[in-house]
């Protein structure tokens, strides 16, 4: 289980995560909803260990182990993956090189074809693997690149930050399908989403509602129904 216990964090003196607690269990889909600026992305970054955020209280546990002091790559290796909302572009490091090196599979002859297969599966042309990572990729292509990486790196817990924005209807169906499969295969997924279109296609096990950095409501799938009907999005 990935557990956030009463974590408060700030960036530049401003508190952006305020006493948040939540749990992500293997094989379960947890959805985090909230208006813009509510702290959803910040929370994901704090879980991942972004050095720009200072955790002032609380702890983050992964399979019972305290990971609050670990660097992002150490957390990644222990089993967490963060799909970025706005993936940065790279000049010179190709997508394939980045992934093969990160997974330690540069010398594995099957690794590249595996990458190509996954690329086709998420709807990304395999030629993108030989391009500088994310450089010149459209919004939708960047999301597919994140999904590709999530699938290839195969970590236990997946934090997906707005994996659906900029993606068309067909793409959303693909994404929803993949999320479903991941959960089925035993991964714990924490999904941050803004779009009713995607939320309509999935079945969350737990839903948290966040506002101004605090969890204001939590429950089962019924919370999602209420929120979608009431349309809280500012």
């Amino acid at each position: 289980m990935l557990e956030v216990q009463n974590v408060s964090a700030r960036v530049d003196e401003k508190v952006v995560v305020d006493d948040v607690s939540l749990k992500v269990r293997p094989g379960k889909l947890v959805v985090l909803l909230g208006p813009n600026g509510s702290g959803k992305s910040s929370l994901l970054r704090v879980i991942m260990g972004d050095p720009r955020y200072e955790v002032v209280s609380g702890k983050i546990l992964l399979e019972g182990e305290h990971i609050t002091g670990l660097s992002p790559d150490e957390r990644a290796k222990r089993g967490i993956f963060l799909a970025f909302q706005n993936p940065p572009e790279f000049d010179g490091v190709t997508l394939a090189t980045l992934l093969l090196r990160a997974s330690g599979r540069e010398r594995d002859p099957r690794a590249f074809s595996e990458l190509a297969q996954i690329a086709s599966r998420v709807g990304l042309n395999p030629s993108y693997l030989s391009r500088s990572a994310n450089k010149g990729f459209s919004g939708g292509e960047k999301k597919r690149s994140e999904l590709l990486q999530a699938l290839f790196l195969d970590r236990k817990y997946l934090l997906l930050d707005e994996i659906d924005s900029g993606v068309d209807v067909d793409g959303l169906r693909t994404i929803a399908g993949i999320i479903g499969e991941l959960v089925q295969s035993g991964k714990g997924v924490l999904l941050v989403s803004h779009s009713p279109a995607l939320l309509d296609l999935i079945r969350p096990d737990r839903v948290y509602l966040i506002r101004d950095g605090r969890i204001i409501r939590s429950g089962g799938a019924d919370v999602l129904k209420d929120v979608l009907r009431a349309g809280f999005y500012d």
Partner: protein
Amino acid sequence: MLRLDDIRKRAADVLPTTTYQPYGDSPTIRSYTRWELFEDAFSGDAWDRGKVIGAVPVDAIPSFSFDPSRSRALAHHFSKLPAIYTWDGSKELLLESGEGHTAQHILFCVRNDAKIYIRDVSRNSKSATLDILVRPGVSADISLLVSGSAPQYLHIRVHLGRESRFTSRLAVIGQDAHVHYEVFLNGERASTDISGGSIGGRSDVVTDVFAGSKSNRAFVRHLIFSSPGDFLAHRGVIRVERASSGAEVDMDSAFLTTGGLAVSVPQLEILTDDVVHAAHRSRDLSPDDEQVFYAQTRGLSSDAFLELYVKELLRSRVASLADAPEVQNAVKSFSESIQR
């Protein structure tokens, strides 16, 4: 045919009136090369022809496009030039320095597609001029590694006929190296692709391209890796001549610095409006925090990512030269400085 002693005489005649560099291109810019050191090197009497393996020594050459009056370095070099060579098609060219100051001039008549590798192994100061004539329809590719702890002057002039192509990869890791490319796109559809990297030390790389015909294409990219104590400059003009049409030119001058000086001066002179694309940019390619964090979230430690980043960037500019042991050493020490 131009004889060696005529070349020497002409150069010696103009030497007294030459200067190393016309005044800089603005009131505050002087020079990025320590010409005083070159003056010392050129003033000695012990000149050596060094060893030129793969080329033929001759007494006279059919073509000579250099003008010694343009720069004192050229005037010195040609006034005491020990020998001239022509390259007849061997694959690898090895230029070795001798005792004292080594000076070499090589005329390349490229009639068939050719790949030229030059690894400049120099212990002492050195000057070399390469005059490259590329026949219509032919491609010439040159891979140059310049390293050495004494002043090195390397001047390359390339003349491209119709539909010919010149590509080059350059890696400079010397102390007081001055490398000057002048590429003339004289024929229709002649094109050039020049990329290189300066890794540590002190060097001044000048890449000049002149597009004078129809549909010429020129892409120039250079990357500087500067760590504390380094002094590295990349400058170059791409000129699109009035008589040209449909030119497509681009210069990308970039740098990574962890504490040394990096100077980037990509210049454009566009003398006609009949251009398809004319742009240049100068930028630093230091990885930002977000890129490092992103790589970490994939499981790469910050040090591993930085090392990968530097290696990949270098390879994108110097290709297989990245495997040369000297280059690997230089990059290793740069990577260490970026990881700190």
